[in-house]
């Protein structure tokens, strides 16, 4: 199982059903997928195909459906630990230390300055007293990150005073403050024009080249997906294409691997 350990993240049998009132809305119908260390994987799929849902599950923000009876349990294995089976506290730790989130709509805290928006991640990680000891170090790192994203001169600004591209850079710096192993990016350029979006991707790529960060990126845009090492296609809650690691394999034998839907087709 040596090939296994080179996967930083491997998911199998992921199902997710939302409830709209009493009506169950199945979104993921058994997703299997793996990401290797230092890899940049893009999940490509139409809007509503369940990409964000998948990303949230991988990031421990949400939990997959529980299975009944003897069906195989859903697994989200991160470096050998199944986060689908983790308790709340471990999940909080996982989100704080192992992964970093970037969202389409930046999601900065409007009352905090740029630098505070970045260090808040470190505050959460180190807790009330721990942060006292790590304060200097965290602020230094936040500054370095923001400088590397060209925001060194805007540390004391509020998010409202920044452009969309700048805000997204702050969000990326925030995601990276605790030096995570995996960056989870949900349409990071979805709200930006092509040039700005390109620059954001350049910045991410540059950072990856320096640090060997693993990236799992969600997009509905084929051209953006091209920036990744590998593309996993998602349609109607199933992986329809993407180099699945041999040892995991599709959990649902009905899935025809290799069918190519048009990426922009409406979901479901």
């Amino acid at each position: 199982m040596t090939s296994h350990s080179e996967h930083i993240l491997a998911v199998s049998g992921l199902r997710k059903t939302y409830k709209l009132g009493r009506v169950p809305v199945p979104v993921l119908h058994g997703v299997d997928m793996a990401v290797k260390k230092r890899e940049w994987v893009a999940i490509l799929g139409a809007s509503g195909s369940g990409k964000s849902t998948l990303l949230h599950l991988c990031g421990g923000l949400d939990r997959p459906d529980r299975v009944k009876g003897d069906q195989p349990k859903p697994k989200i294995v991160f470096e050998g630990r199944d986060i689908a089976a983790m308790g709340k506290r471990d999940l909080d730790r996982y989100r704080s230390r192992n992964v970093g989130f970037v969202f389409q709509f930046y999601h900065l805290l409007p009352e905090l300055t740029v630098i505070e928006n970045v260090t808040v991640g470190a505050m959460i990680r180190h807790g009330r007293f721990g942060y006292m000891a790590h304060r200097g170090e965290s602020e230094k790192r936040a500054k370095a990150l923001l400088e590397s994203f060209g925001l060194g001169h805007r540390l004391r600004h509020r998010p409202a005073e920044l452009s969309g591209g700048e805000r997204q850079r702050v969000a990326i710096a925030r995601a990276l403050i605790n030096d995570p192993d995996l960056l989870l990016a949900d349409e990071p350029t979805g709200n930006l024009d092509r040039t700005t979006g390109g620059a954001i991707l350049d910045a991410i790529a540059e950072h990856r080249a320096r640090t060997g960060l693993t990236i799992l990126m969600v997009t509905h845009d084929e051209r953006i997906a091209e920036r990744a090492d590998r593309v996993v296609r998602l349609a109607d809650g199933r992986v329809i294409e993407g180099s699945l690691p041999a040892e995991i394999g599709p959990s649902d034998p009905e899935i025809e691997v290799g069918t190519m839907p048009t990426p922009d087709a409406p979901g479901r």
Partner: protein
Amino acid sequence: MYQALLTRRYLTSKLMPLLAMAAVLLSVATILITWSVMGGFLNALLSSGRTLIGDAFIAWPNVGFAYYEELAEDLEAHPRIEAAAPVIETYGMVRLPDDRVELIQVTGVEVASYSAVTGFGDTLWWKPLDKPTRKDKDRRDPRLDPNNRPVLTEFVENGLAMTRPDPDTGVPLPAGILGVEVTGLNYRTSGGIYIPINGQRALPSGGIESLDLFMPRNGSVGLTLLSLDSTGKPTDPVSRVLPIANEFQSGIYEVDSKTLIAPLDLIQRMLRMEEARRVASEGADDPWGYETDPQTGELRPAVPKATAADPARVTTVLIRGVPGTTPDEVAAIADSIYEQFAARHAGEVPDAFSIQISTWEDRNRTMIAAVKKETALVLVIFGIICFTTVFLVLAIFWSMISEKTRDIGILRALGASTPGVAWLWLRYGAAIGVVGAVLGLVAGWLIVTNINAIHDWLGEVLGPWLSGVLSTISGWFGGDPILINLVIWDPRVYYFVEIPRKVEPGKAAIVFVAGVLTCVLGALIPAVRSARMDPVKSLRFE
């Protein structure tokens, strides 16, 4: 850590929670003011008790008990007792200069011991003053007039000696001191001072005679008491004219309108409680009895002889403890001292079990309990009103958390735990509570310490101004003038000249904690809700 940072930022950037803060401020200030004023009122009541009778008393009403001087000495020998004063407390009738007859409480005192136990000397009203009293803004107090100084000084001397010189012979006669409200010849102004007025006496012809008198100068009352027979039963009325040396004001209307203080020996004589010889004749049962005259050696009808002396009696011994001793402690000491005293005089004085030993507070239990109840009631009512602050905070935090769901989602995505998020809101609530309560305490304290000035301003400036404005407006519509009187505490009606008040640190601390708890309580439900929120939902959209 992030909670502290966000709390600080929310405090300075959010407007809504400032409303919650204002609500806490008002509640805290209201409760503190109410409590301080009601507490001050009770305090004034209790301390006037101390002025009147000291800390505690030993009483055997009506008939009185003997050897009181010995008892007073025993009491004063105790290190925690400062002074003891034997007095007689009884009821009598006074005929006032305008011929009204009133039932009156008569207290017979020895000035020296009575002053040592009570604040009697300070309660004398007619005395020279250098500074006007607080509310006497236009210096109408006749006691301020330098021309009156010599005569006022004389009144004080008379009052402290309880004598007044006979106008013809100059011989000092025993004199009494009346409560300042008894005669009705002193007009109490809104400034809380007294202006002597001319009395009027109705004549049988239907006319009115004007009385030109001022009690401490030339006023007298007719005092009637019921003297006691040898078994202590009231029997014959005894009357005499008692000149008035001065008048006193204790601050409690009930006392000032119904009390006469008179020299103890005089009252003892009138009641026949002074030292008396008990007489008996040999064979007194036999009206035909004979005895030998020791001088002539002849037989003669039996002559009564003094067989024993009945010691003088008083009804009450007033006791004052050294500073720092509570009335209850003084009463306890009096209890144990009286026990020894009664053992020594078994059969001559009331036994320790029957004697009454208590405090001013005990004696006026109903009145004081009523004030305490009122205080509690007012506080409960205000407490309920202030409890709405909890709901205000709840509503504000609820809406604030709905507005901030995305921030909560972000924090959760960054690894914040659910208790951590709940703590953010509780902390924020507590911060609002602390700031609001501190400001409330400051506001309450400022208002309480300046309450009399504020009250004066309401009555003297705002009231007339409002009346003027409203009357003008009503004038436009042909209505009557509208008068608004904002004088709530009129010394003519209430007894204490000023609104009594007392900010106690203990009460302030309780109010402060309650204010903070109010906010935390209000923030609790929204905090729990925020922690339960699904982080994913809020992050999905902008």
